[in-house]
């Protein structure tokens, strides 16, 4: 996994909380910084893809690690 500036653990949270928490975390970051998100909600895989497309932030990576979903999003 690539480098990141901040991490958000959304494990155990269900739709739409991982997205809402990520949005909040991104708002506090400067443009170009990377947020790493860990989630257990299987729906979050498609949701973070859609979130990135609609908000202009870049989804750098989307994958699985130790049975959890991990995303890297760079703030636009």
């Amino acid at each position, binding site marked *: 996994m690539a480098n990141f500036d901040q991490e958000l653990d959304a494990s155990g949270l269900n739709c739409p909380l991982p997205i*809402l928490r990520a949005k909040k975390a991104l708002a506090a970051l400067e443009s170009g910084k990377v947020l790493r998100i860990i989630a257990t909600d299987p729906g979050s895989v498609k949701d973070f893809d859609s979130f990135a497309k*609609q*908000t202009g932030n870049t989804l750098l990576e989307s994958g699985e690690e130790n049975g959890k979903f991990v995303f890297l999003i760079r703030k636009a």
Partner: protein
Amino acid sequence: MSQKKLAIIATKGTLDWGYPPFILASTAAALGYEVQVFFSFYGLKLLQKNLDLKVSSLGNPGMPMPIPMPVLLQALPGMQALMTMMMKQKMKAKGVASLEELRNLCVEAEVKMIACQMTVDLFEFNPKDFIPGVELGGAATFFEFAGESDICLYL
């Protein structure tokens, strides 16, 4: 890119049906939408500071039950409270946000909430019992925003 708009009419005041308006409003706001929710009839209960919502299986044969139960039993005193408690426990166990949390996220995201004046008067709701920031308005108020919206939902 101009900001997209989502308009919602929320008409239901049960614990389960309280979710869709707040889930969609908060998510849309996170995606950059400007959102307005118009609360009418039983949806007004979603605006009260003290959210005391119940869920009932009566009249809802689609509700999954832990054990099969005849409708007549579901109507017994205390059953509604029991179902509500069970639903809340299940939601907590599955990591589903509480309605209060989702509503707070909507407020933080500046989702505009409008209480229908006619039904506030009809059911004698006290606007002082509503969370701060709620405005009162009528059908024409709703259309002012809904007419310009990209998505419009009746829930």
